[in-house]
């Protein structure tokens, strides 16, 4: 049996402070993930179109849940969607990641989905703040680790 196909989907806005975290972490992880598709997206809704054709997906994004900025947040998305406290994940576009995955789930079977994120602080235009900047290597490491775990089936 072929190894499960895993895809990495990174969401965020590269110009809105800590909201770039998902994109930056996925970029850092890319060199350690030969042969794995790493796709950078803008609005989370586009994730909907990219859940097909693979066995598992790792979604990397910024989170606003009231935690300390820079905190790594990682979990597997179960059949009931995102854990309740992360249902309103960060999105400036009304239709965020939890809603998008919920929508995909109500339309058909989902691949395995794991989430790797980081709690944000600043969202004003410019580079990420120091807390998130410091968390990026660990976030990238968790992305690589999660891809390997899902690829083992």
């Amino acid at each position, binding site marked *: 049996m072929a190894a499960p196909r895993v895809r990495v989907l990174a969401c965020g*806005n590269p110009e809105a402070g800590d909201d770039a975290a998902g994109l930056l972490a996925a970029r850092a992880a890319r060199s350690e993930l030969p042969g794995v598709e790493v796709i950078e997206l803008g609005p989370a809704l586009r994730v909907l179109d990219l859940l097909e054709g693979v066995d598992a997906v790792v979604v990397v994004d910024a989170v606003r849940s009231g935690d300390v900025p820079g905190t790594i947040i990682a979990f597997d998305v179960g059949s009931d969607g995102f854990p309740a406290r992360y249902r309103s994940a960060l999105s400036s576009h009304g239709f965020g990641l939890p809603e998008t995955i919920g929508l995909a789930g109500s*339309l058909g079977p989902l691949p395995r989905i794991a989430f790797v994120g980081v709690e944000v602080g600043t969202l004003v235009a410019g580079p990420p703040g120091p807390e998130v900047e410091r968390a990026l290597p660990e976030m990238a490491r968790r992305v690589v680790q999660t891809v390997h775990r899902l690829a083992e089936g």
Partner: protein
Amino acid sequence: MTHRTAQTPNRLIDVPSLARVEGDGALHIALDGDRITDLRLEIYEPPRFFEAFLVGRHVEEVPDIVPRICGICPVAYQMSAILGLERLFEIDPPAGTPELRRLLYLAEWIESHMLHVHLLAAPDLLGYESAIELARHERAIVERGLSLKRLGNDLMALIGGREIHPVTPRVGGFSRTPLVRELRAFEPRLEQAADDILGVADWAASLPRPSFSRPVELVSLRDGREYPVMHGDVVSSEGRRFAMDHFEDHVEEEQVPHSNALHAHLVGGGTYFLGPLSRVNLNAELLGPLAREALGRVRLQLPTLDPFASMAARVVETAQAIGEALALLRTYERGDPAPAHVEPRPGRATWITEAPRGMLYHRYGVAADGTILAARIVPPTSQNLARIEEDLRRFLPDHLDEEDAELSRLCEMVVRNYDPCISCATHFLTLDLQRSP
């Protein structure tokens, strides 16, 4: 999310976070009996500092910076900037560039309009909590809508060069143009989409919708030759007409205390209405055959001032975009892929294009070496904002008998008619801007 404060004539309708509006917003309404004592559409999306961010950059960087203002309509931001700069520099892009730009822009209309119609507006009209619930009950409808939306995204990704914010559009043309076979590969999908959009029109016509009539000045571009996307004069339903570079002589923006966004009105007039409904009203005779068919099927009778007809207008414009995209794709020839040489000139660059939500104005002050000295960006939502509040003030008095939950749902629908993209509309005063990093 609605709170009735007490069983007194005083009612407080608070919709702290508007669901299904692009960006973060809050609506506060206070009523004393039948009197509205306070009505504020608040914006608290983290402000964007893009205008300041552009100052000091080189003109050739502008097409990479401005699309990041909005993930839903990046092409609109690129095109208003690029066309304004090209006019200032008197650049003629290579043959085929205008057609390819139009195709890219129409793809953005398809993506944005189908998102709004299916995931944002339809759940309201059918009384579902969310698009997720709608999808459970009307799976085929949602799947058809999402496949239309995806077609728009995929066309944008091909022409724009990647998934996220397009990178190929440049001042002077495109850094890469698609191969003829890459673009033609979309023909079967667009043909299917031409069928599908008529099905969407029939379905949209069958949805129950409120109606609301009030006087309003409709404003859009119009060039009289083709349906307005990137060219024309600014015209209005009151007979106003002016060239796009005179925008700032005709539109005034003012800071209001309760919002980071500026409120706009016409000089010598009042608030005005931008977007698909205005474009369709003011340019109906320029619609192509597929859009005319959709217009009949969706039962949109023109002219109309009813803002609840906006969803139908989005369906008609999607049909227009699909019809035009098919024609553009069939005649596409890959011209010279290299963009024209850019020789900056000092001066003032302005342009307006029709973003999915309405007219998007850009102005740049440019130095002789191509450095940006000043930038002003006026998105459609910031122009519509004062109009949205005025709609609410007029709409509310006729619906005060409704329970708070229903009243708040109706108010959200009034706001959503404009498909506001609040994240793009946010501005800060210069004073605040200087205090922040």
